[in-house]
């Protein structure tokens, strides 16, 4: 372009900007309007208009979810899933939503740094060059596992600069699973777990909703399999010492002793094998694992194992294992056992499938790390390049990475600050995935492109890591990368090959199409040739011995912080963990019975100690953990990752000893016991739930399959009055109301996994400020949408329920009539309009809201630069003293209406989408026009007339509203969670009254 300006540099164009929400009469400083120097090409730019760009999410290691970024004024403002992408199909997880805060994180590196000294890019590059030249051949490149062409590129680059080794490092590695595939099936790739084909899912501790595999895809497939439909509901059994989110969604939890999941799998296989011997070579292998023999070790009764095995055999079933909780010293053996179980139950090719083409995934085994450590200590490595990884925080302290690191020069290439690059000799600020090129090929048939969706954030002087590498390589070796100038060229050429192999037509067209769609997506083809190999009997399972005394320690990967990289994102810190509802902290999950025995009170601080050291954290009592175990989430306890992360919580990995899995060399996370010692320290841990129980108030209601399908009368429906005598006619009789729209929502609690992606999406969409721990402690968090977690029942029968609660947009709202200035009123489309600029701030509406869905701006909240660039410029950012709440993303509705009007029609079903609905992988949220009887939301919200007429039959319908006896007439209809059996607490039928 002219004058050397790329079009993406033009985000100076801010026709509307600044903050000028000043009361009338105050003298305003004249605002400046700075026009662009060069007009952007017309169809590419329109002020105040969101443009969508497809790219790939790079937040988690498994990841290659497609992302669709909405950019306004050339600033990315919202991340959504790419609807074309087969993995996530338009949805994103909480981490993906929060990727915007990777981009705009104020703690990103702004300049290259040598030691603690800020240097120029020229100096940084020349220093990098000299380091590389000094240590040719003794270079190690430690990076994240790659799913695209980046790995090959780096390998190539290492060759060009003098030779070295690349190590892919991920704490939550699937290496054991991969190794087990090799042993059991002779495949070098990972299988596809077809949840949706199974009628029974037995989960041996995989946290498939949180971190294992592709959580977004898992969540969707699990919901498809598990959700109630047409009078049927499939079952999910969770086996393991810790429930967590995945276990909470299961229908039954078998609290097996830590590390013994494989024994149950083998015992089940034993039972099935005896009945239906499919593989002869298993006779010896399975014989030591009869249910009778394993019962005492696992803590699961013989009958239970037998009946489970029976069920597993009879139905189309799937057993899965993996994730952090299977990462014991027997990780590979556990996986082999589970694969064996699937094989004997004849699940191969049905629910456990392999792709036709064998695409080996990268070796993420920790043996490489251990090798690296010994090499470092031996002085064999001169230069360590750490790319976007944080081994100091992520690896157990016992491995001594920080000491080993001192033996070599360290170059850190990273966008954000962390503990490792704080200690690096040279820090190269890298661009985030939003600003740079890349691609991903997570499974055969998916080629996902990662393109820059905006110019680099203007306050950071960062460059794309690959571009830096190319530039450096060219300085060292003039023959290197002669074909290309930057990584975009590399990707471009690479995709030309993809094009050659598959498509006709000119490449340019293909390239543009790829960028528009976000990649190439082909349907998977399955292999039929996979069968269990007799090598499995080479893997002998031994009961893992946990060192030390006390309770087994379970480091639980957090759905928000993953291995720690999410901790510096304000949204993820402020969103309460779905299980514990704790924000900005770590906690120790202990069974109440155990706590009683040890004399530990809830919310007290305990000290955990083993041979590795000790740490202190607050106790969270929960029935969702084995009596002999404690769980601590991974990811907190940072010291140099920025103000949002530092000083919050503890790093549980410090307690993990350096034990490994025999087959892969993977770190064993389940490998130690800890002593739990009460202390007298005052706890300052903040949980956002005022009460963990709903006291029979049916906020998150449930019913059973039997109740829904039988004709039996049920007298559980005492909430809704038998007869509602209306004092006034319905609002729909008011002239002009609900014509043509009456926005409404249906939330299916049977599909909701509690993953809280919707909560983060709401933060991102609606400019909701993050308030910090101190203010969250007094209830001033601003989240418009909250994932409420309620517990039902006791002991092992405890059921966890989730209910996303936002403003219910009531017809007979309590908030409206009490506002003295009409700042909130019922608008003709059925929304509780909240008009910020009219609000005086009496807070009466909040008091009178029975759902407490309103949030108040107690202060003028700050969006520290450059987080302010993320603010959605299509809506008002609220000032102090103003009430706010969910408005069903009214700006999105307005945009949909404008778009429809341009086409000369009304908005059709599915055109207006709220942010929470958009990002929900499980499709638990349906939004639309209730005034249209044919819309999906109307269909879902419709109740059976006979049930509506007779409240005694209430449990026979899944639709319900919260607090129907208040007659607020909410526009949000919930669908009951469907259980297989009724779960009743001691006070299950009480309503929270005293007696």
């Amino acid at each position, binding site marked *: 372009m002219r004058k050397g300006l790329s079009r993406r540099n033009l985000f100076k164009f801010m026709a509307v900007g600044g903050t000028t929400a000043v009361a009338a009469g105050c003298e305003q400083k004249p605002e400046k309007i700075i026009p662009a120097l060069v007009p952007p090409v017309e169809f590419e730019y329109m002020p105040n208009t969101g443009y969508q760009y497809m790219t790939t999410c790079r937040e988690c290691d498994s990841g290659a979810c497609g992302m669709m970024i909405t950019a306004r004024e050339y600033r990315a403002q919202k991340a959504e899933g790419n609807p074309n992408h087969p993995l996530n199909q338009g949805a994103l997880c909480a981490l993906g939503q929060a990727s915007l805060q990777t981009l705009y994180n104020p703690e990103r590196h702004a300049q290259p740094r040598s030691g603690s000294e800020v240097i120029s890019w020229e100096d940084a590059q020349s220093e990098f060059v000299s380091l590389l030249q000094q240590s040719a051949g003794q270079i190690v490149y430690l990076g994240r596992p790659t799913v695209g062409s980046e790995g090959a590129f780096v390998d190539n680059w290492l060759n060009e600069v003098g030779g070295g080794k690349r190590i892919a490092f991920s704490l939550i590695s699937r290496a054991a699973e991969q190794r087990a595939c090799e042993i059991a099936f002779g495949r070098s790739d990972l299988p596809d777990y077809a949840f949706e084909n199974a009628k029974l899912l037995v989960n041996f501790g995989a946290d498939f909703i949180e971190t294992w595999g592709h959580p977004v895809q898992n969540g969707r497939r699990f919901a498809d399999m598990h959700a109630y439909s047409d009078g049927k509901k499939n079952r999910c059994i969770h086996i393991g010492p810790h429930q967590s989110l995945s276990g909470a969604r299961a229908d039954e939890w078998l609290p097996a002793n830590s590390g013994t999941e494989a024994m149950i799998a083998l015992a089940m296989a034993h039972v099935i094998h005896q009945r239906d011997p499919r593989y002869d070579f298993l006779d010896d292998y399975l014989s030591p694992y009869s249910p009778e023999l394993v019962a005492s070790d696992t803590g699961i009764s013989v009958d239970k194992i037998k009946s489970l095995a029976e069920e597993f055999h009879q139905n189309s079933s799937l057993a899965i294992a993996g994730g952090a909780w299977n990462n014991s010293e027997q990780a590979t053996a556990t996986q082999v056992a589970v694969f064996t179980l699937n094989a004997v139950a004849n699940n191969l090719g049905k629910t456990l499938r392999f792709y036709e083409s064998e695409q080996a995934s990268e070796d993420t085994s920790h043996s490489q790390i251990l090798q690296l450590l010994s090499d470092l200590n031996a002085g064999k490595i001169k230069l360590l390049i750490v790319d976007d990884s944080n081994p100091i925080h992520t690896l157990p302290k016992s491995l001594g990475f920080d000491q080993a690191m001192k033996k070599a020069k360290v170059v850190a290439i990273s966008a954000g600050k962390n503990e490792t690059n704080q200690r690096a000799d040279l820090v190269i600020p890298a661009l985030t995935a939003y600003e740079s090129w890349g691609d991903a090929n997570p499974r055969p048939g998916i080629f996902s492109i990662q393109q820059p969706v905006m110019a680099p954030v203007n306050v950071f002087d960062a460059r794309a890591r690959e571009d830096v590498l190319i530039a450096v390589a060219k300085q060292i070796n003039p023959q290197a990368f002669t074909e290309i100038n930057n990584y975009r060229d590399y990707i471009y050429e690479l995709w030309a090959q993809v094009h050659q192999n598959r498509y006709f037509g000119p490449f340019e067209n293909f390239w543009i199409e790829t960028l528009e769609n976000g990649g190439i997506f082909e349907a998977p083809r399955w292999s039929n040739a996979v069968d269990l190999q007799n090598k499995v009997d080479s893997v002998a399972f031994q009961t893992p011995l946990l060192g030390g005394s006390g309770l087994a320690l379970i480091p639980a990967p957090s759905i928000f912080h993953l291995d720690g990289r999410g901790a510096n994102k304000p949204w993820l810190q402020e969103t309460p963990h779905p299980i514990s509802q704790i924000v900005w902290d770590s906690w120790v999950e202990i069974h109440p019975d155990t706590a009683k025995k040890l004399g530990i009170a*809830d919310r007290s601080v305990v000290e955990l100690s083993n041979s590795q050291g000790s740490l202190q954290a607050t106790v969270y009592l929960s*029935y969702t953990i084995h009596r002999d175990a404690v769980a601590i989430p991974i990811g907190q306890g940072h010291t140099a990752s920025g103000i949002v992360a530092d000083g919050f919580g503890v790093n549980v990995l410090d307690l993990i000893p350096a034990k490994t899995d025999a087959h892969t060399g993977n770190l064993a996370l389940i490998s130690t016991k800890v002593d739990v010692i009460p202390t007298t320290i005052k706890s300052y841990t903040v949980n956002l739930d005022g009460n963990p129980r709903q006291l029979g108030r049916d906020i998150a209601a449930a019913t059973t399959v039997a109740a829904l399908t039988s004709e039996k009368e049920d007298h559980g429906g005492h909430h809704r009055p038998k007869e509602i005598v209306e004092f006034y006619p319905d609002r729909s009789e008011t002239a002009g109301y609900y014509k043509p729209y009456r926005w409404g929502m249906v939330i299916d609690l049977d599909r909701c996994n509690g993953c809280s992606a919707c909560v983060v999406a709401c933060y991102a969409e609606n400019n909701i400020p993050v308030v910090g721990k101190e*203010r969250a402690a007094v209830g001033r968090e601003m989240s418009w949408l909250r994932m409420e977690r309620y517990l039902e029942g006791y002991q092992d029968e405890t059921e966890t329920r989730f209910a996303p609660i936002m403003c219910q947009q009531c017809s007979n709202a309590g908030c409206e009539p009490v506002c003295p200035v009409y700042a909130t009123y019922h608008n003709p489309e059925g929304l509780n309009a909240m008009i910020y600029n009219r609000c005086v701030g009496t807070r009466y509406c909040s008091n009178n809201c029975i759902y407490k869905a309103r949030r108040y701006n107690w*202060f003028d909240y700050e969006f520290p630069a450059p987080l302010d660039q993320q603010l959605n410029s299509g809506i008002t950012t609220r000032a*102090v003293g103003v009430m706010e709440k969910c408005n069903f993303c009214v700006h999105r509705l307005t945009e949909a209406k404008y778009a429809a009007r341009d086409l000369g029609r009304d908005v059709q079903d599915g055109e207006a989408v709220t942010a929470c609905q958009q990002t929900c992988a499980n499709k638990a949220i349906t939004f639309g026009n209730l005034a249209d009887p044919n819309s999906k939301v109307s269909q879902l919200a419709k109740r059976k007339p006979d049930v509506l007429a007779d409240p005694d039959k209430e449990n026979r319908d899944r639709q319900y509203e919260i607090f129907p006896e*208040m007659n607020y007439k909410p526009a949000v209809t919930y669908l009951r969670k469907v259980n297989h059996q009724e779960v009743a607490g001691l006070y299950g039928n009480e309503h929270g009254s005293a007696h």
Partner: protein
Amino acid sequence: MASTTILETVEDSSRSLPFREEIDEHRGHPGIRATTFSYGQINDDMLEMLEKPHPSYFLLVLGFLSALLLGAVSLAIQVDVGIGNSGISHPIAWGFYITDFVFWIGIGHAGTLISAVFYLTRAPWRTAIYRSAEAMTVFAVLTAGLFPLLHTGRPWLAYWLIPYPNERYLWVNFKSPLAWDVFAVTTYMSVSIMFFLLGLVPDMAILRDEAKRRGKILQAKIYAIFAMSWRGTNHQWIHFMRGYLIFAGLATPLVFSVHSIVSWDFAMASIPGWHTTIFAPYFVAGAIFSGLAMVMTVLIPVRVVFRLEDYISNHVINKVCQVILFTSMIVGYAYATEFFIAWYSGSPYERAVFYFRPFGHMATWSLTGDQPVSFPLLAFYLMIFCNVIAPIPLWRKKVRNNLVAVWIICGLINVGMWFERFNIVGSSLQRDFHPYNWGEYWPTLVEVGITIGSFGFFFTLFALFMKALPPMAIMELKEAAEPPMRKGHHEH
């Protein structure tokens, strides 16, 4: 008697006599010795109270002013930083400020009750105390009126609550109890001030003439403005007394309506513990209860300092104590009724709140175990103790005649009634429908500062009033006294 002897010192001998209850039934009112005094004596006694104050008075005012200053500084901080500086939060969006508002409005009610309601019911013991009580009404309502303004998030926009024609075409929502509050409180404030000033007119004429006599022309002119050329002619008296009666007639339903409307701020909401039909009478009784207690708290020291046994006699205190006792029983009954209805209604939400108030948390359902004693818990027991138990000794006449005991009990009632309001405002919001949102409330220094400041504001105004205006209605004292008769008393 020559005109030169108008203001010769009234003999003091009668005052040094020990108190005698047995006063000649035919002269004046039994129990109030001042009704036997001559017009001149009453006049001079009252004017003496307005003499140059003792230095300790200035010290007292200084003390009140510093409390006021504390409140002003706290308020400045809050407006500057934002309402978040207070302890109120989600879900307890109303805290100290609304408590203070209701408390001060309640204090105001006693004044109107004494001046209007007891005027209509011809309770003779009101005469000596009604002016002070009415002044308290005005000051209390002024104090109360500040709180709805300063508790809003954007107090600079609080004028939007007034229905005035504006450029935006927007009006206020008259269905909102807060809009009712605006009307009720401003009406109450206006009527109280008018009533107060109206009653002052003849007394201002007395002050005007007294100042004139002493040759203080400027003072006389200022008093003359308020006296509105009052001469005491029969025509003036006729209209005045009729007007006074009408005002009393208007103020009587007003006083009951205002606190009812204030109670509807809560009763109109759906929140358990608020949504109660009993609130209007309950609040009115509470208002009278606390207001009379405040009257006693203030007037007992006044009686001691100014040695006004003849005016604020034990008989008067006795009567006030009887009303306090009566309203205490009403309030106690209301507490009991609330609990009974909460149980009897079967509503789980009501039951939960009323379980919460005395017992704090609900550990039986909670996995979060024991919580510290929360603030409303303290409020609840203080409320029960101060409002129901503390007044019980008043059943004995001996206690009612003991000034110290009465003063202590009335002080306790003030504390108790403040906490009663806090209990209502705070605890219901802490445990409402949605258990997920249950929260705790602890006030911050700013809120405490503003609350102290409100007391400073009230007492500063009252202290100034004590020395600027006749604290008792001279005209009415005279009216109640035996008129001078040459031929002695005759039945009428």
